[in-house]
Each structure stands twice: as C-alpha cells, then as structure tokens.
C-alpha cells in the first residue's frame, strides 16, 4: 500500500532532532534506514504525523572499540558490522548474529539503532543486546540517559524509549579473549525472521569449567530473554555432551511460546532447545 501522509524533517543536530520529536505530542517518529518503519507505514500499523530523519546527525555511524567494550552508533548499518574485520575479535558474537539479519539489500540500509528501537521479538540485535547485558544510550528533551537492556525491551514492538528520545549508541561490555560463544538461528527461508534463535557465551576457568554463562533466546516470547535456569546449569560445569543436553532441555522448559501461523508453541519450545544445543556445541567445539 502507498504510505500514509506525513511531514518530513531532516535535522542536522541531535538537539534539533529531539526538539522536532518533542513537538508533535508523541506523534512523531524517528527514521534511520527505514527497513522496519517503512513496512509499518505501508501496512498502516504506524501513521506518524512527522518523520524525523536521523541521517545527517554527526557521529552516530561509528563503531568504537576500546578496552571497556564495543560501542555501536545508532546509525551503524548491518553492512558496516559485517565489513568491520576488527569485530571478529573484539565482539565475535555480534558479527555471528548479524550474518542472520535480513537480506543483502536490507543490510545496506538497516541500522542497529532502528532494530533496537523497533524491538521485534524475533530480531537478532535485541537478542544479542539482552544476552550481553549491553546498555542503550538515548537522548531526549530532558537529557541523556543510559538504559540497561533488561529494562529496555518491554514487549513486542514496545520499549522504554520515550516519544522524544533517540537512541544514540549501543554499548557492549568488553569481550575477553578466549570467551566461548555461539549463535544459532532457524528460519523457514534465509533472511526471514527467526522462528527461534539462541545466543550463548561463557568463560572458562583454569579447570575448563564454564563461568559467567549467558544464554539468550529470541522468537519464543514477546521480547528477547535470558534463560537463568540454563545459565545456572552451565556455570561450574564442563560443557560436554551431557551438560549440553541438560541445557537444551532446560531451555525448552524455560520458555512459554505462543501458537501462531508460522509455528505451534510446542514446535517452538522444541526448536529453542535445539538452537541452544547447537549454539553450545559450536561454543564448546
């Protein structure tokens, strides 16, 4: 369908962009790559009176790698992540997850900030953000604040972002060398939304036992979640076949997916166990 009528502004500074968003009583939306928002407009799921284009805002397209971690500017595109060889060492889980994001053409436009703001329950980046305990830096009319991942995602397409706030940066804690990780996803066709996916990582102590296990899943609820029972089962254990089987069973038991036209709840529950199993097999290999 053709898009609904809206006004359009393309401010040059963050403060102008915030002022424009604040000026329309919550009826203005920020647009970056538009790869989620424009379909929402086409379906009339969203019909804002004003679109505020973020493309001219300076400095938001940078990938910064420091000792304290990896920071992705909101306007960083999937393509930029895949092309950045540094990330393969600095944060290989991000790079592994982004390989599953959408299609070739969409990766040339879609942005990290857009995906996190859109908060699709089956999207990869929100899942990695939650799994890694990343923080989301935002700026609004009352100033800047930093929101932890676990309180940012509040439901399907629902976040803690106020209508006048713009995501500026996603900050991931530093990734130690030697950390084990895996990202596994199942979709009906390549590039489609995940029916389920799992992101896992853990560190190993001197005795080869897992510590600091983090297990996050997407596609099996209204938001990405970490699975505390699975993490507890891994911490202190050797990640061998028996531990992986226990973790997979715990993952299936921990989620409560709904039936929808793409898959039944029972199928998704089984699938999420398989994704956790495969991700741990990959991590421990």
């Amino acid at each position, binding site marked *: 369908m053709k898009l609904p009528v809206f006004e359009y502004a393309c401010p040059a500074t963050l403060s102008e962009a915030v002022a424009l968003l604040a000026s329309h009583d919550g009826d203005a939306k920020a647009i970056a790559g538009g790869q989620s928002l424009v*379909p929402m407009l086409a379906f009339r799921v969203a019909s804002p009176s004003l679109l505020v284009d973020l493309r001219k805002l300076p400095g938001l397209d940078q990938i910064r790698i420091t000792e304290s971690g990896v920071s992705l500017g909101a306007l960083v595109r999937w393509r930029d992540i895949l092309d950045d060889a540094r990330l393969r060492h600095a944060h290989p889980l991000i790079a592994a997850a982004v390989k599953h994001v959408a299609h070739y053409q969409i990766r*040339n*436009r879609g942005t990290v900030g857009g995906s996190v703001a859109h908060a699709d329950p089956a999207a990869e980046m929100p899942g990695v953000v939650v799994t890694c305990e990343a923080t989301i830096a935002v700026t609004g009319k009352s100033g800047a604040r930093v929101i932890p991942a676990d309180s940012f995602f509040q439901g399907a397409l629902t976040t803690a972002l106020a209508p006048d706030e713009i995501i500026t940066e996603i900050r991931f804690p530093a990734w130690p060398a030697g950390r084990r990780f895996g990202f596994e996803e199942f979709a009906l066709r390549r590039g489609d939304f995940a029916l389920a996916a799992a992101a896992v990582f853990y560190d190993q102590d001197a005795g080869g036992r897992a510590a600091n296990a983090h297990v996050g899943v997407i596609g099996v609820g209204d938001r990405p979640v970490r699975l505390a029972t699975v993490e507890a089962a891994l911490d202190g254990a050797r990640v061998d076949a028996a531990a992986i089987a226990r973790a997979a069973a715990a993952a299936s038991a921990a989620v409560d997916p709904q039936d929808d036209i793409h898959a039944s709840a029972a199928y998704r529950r089984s699938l999420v166990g398989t994704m956790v199993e495969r991700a741990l097999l990959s991590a421990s290999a």
Partner: protein
Amino acid sequence: MTTRFDVNGKPVEVTVEPRMTLADCLRHVLRLTGTHVGCEHGVCGACTVLVDGAAVRSCLMLAVQADGRQVTTVEGLSNDDDLTPLQKSFRKHHALQCGFCTPGMITTAHALLTEEPDCDADRVREVLSGNICRCTGYISIVEAVLDARSAYRKPGGGAA
C-alpha cells in the same frame, strides 16, 4: 519537497510528497519504469536499485532520503543499446520467464558481482534470497549470475 539527486549519472530535481517512495518517484515522476514494484513492503526485491553503489530496496526508501545520493536503476547499467554481460548471461541461461522480477535480479546481482566477483553458488543463493521469482525456480538465475562472474573480474570490466 524539492529533492536533488543523480539518476544514472544525470542530476535530477524533483518535487515530491515526503511519503513518495524512491521506487514510485523513479517510475511515476522520472518515468524510469524499469524498476518494478511488487510487494511495496520490502519483501520481493523487484524494486532493487543501487544507491551510492549499494543494492537497496527502493520501496523502503523515501525519495526525499535520496537527496544528494547517486541512484542507479536497471536502465543505467548499460551505456548504450547493447546488453551488459550480466544481461546477456540471463538471456543465455533463460534466467527469466515473465520478467517481472528481472530488474531486481539484475541490479542485485550486479552489485554482488561488483563487490564479490569470485562469489560461489552458495553466496549467490544467499544474496538472491532477497529477490522473489515465481517463474523460474531460481536455478537458471543462479547459473546466469555465476556465468557472468568472469566479466566482473577483468580490470575495468563489468557492465558499466
């Protein structure tokens, strides 16, 4: 709004509503009807064009967002009336039947081969997963793209 950008190497100035997609602007304002519009919500890939050399879905980009950019449509891949090596390969391999998806297939494959002239069949299939064809079953399209790789490997070669 008045927006200026380059289309196939020529500067254009258009006055459009903000809600007009780049795809509709190319077709209805600039009368470049080679770009096809299938689904209008970013699923089918028929509307793929190049923006600053990168393949994008022109139905998911507003015309006003193209301001200052270089847009290349399927019409712009060839400088004359002759077919490009990629287009010739599509003909040779019968990589189209109804032809509706073909402009998007060609622009996408052109971007891929320009960036990765040594890509393998799996990579071609991965990239073309973003373009829907309801006629061919894709096998002939993948063969055509693979067969055109040699044209992109020559220094200064390719479809330009």
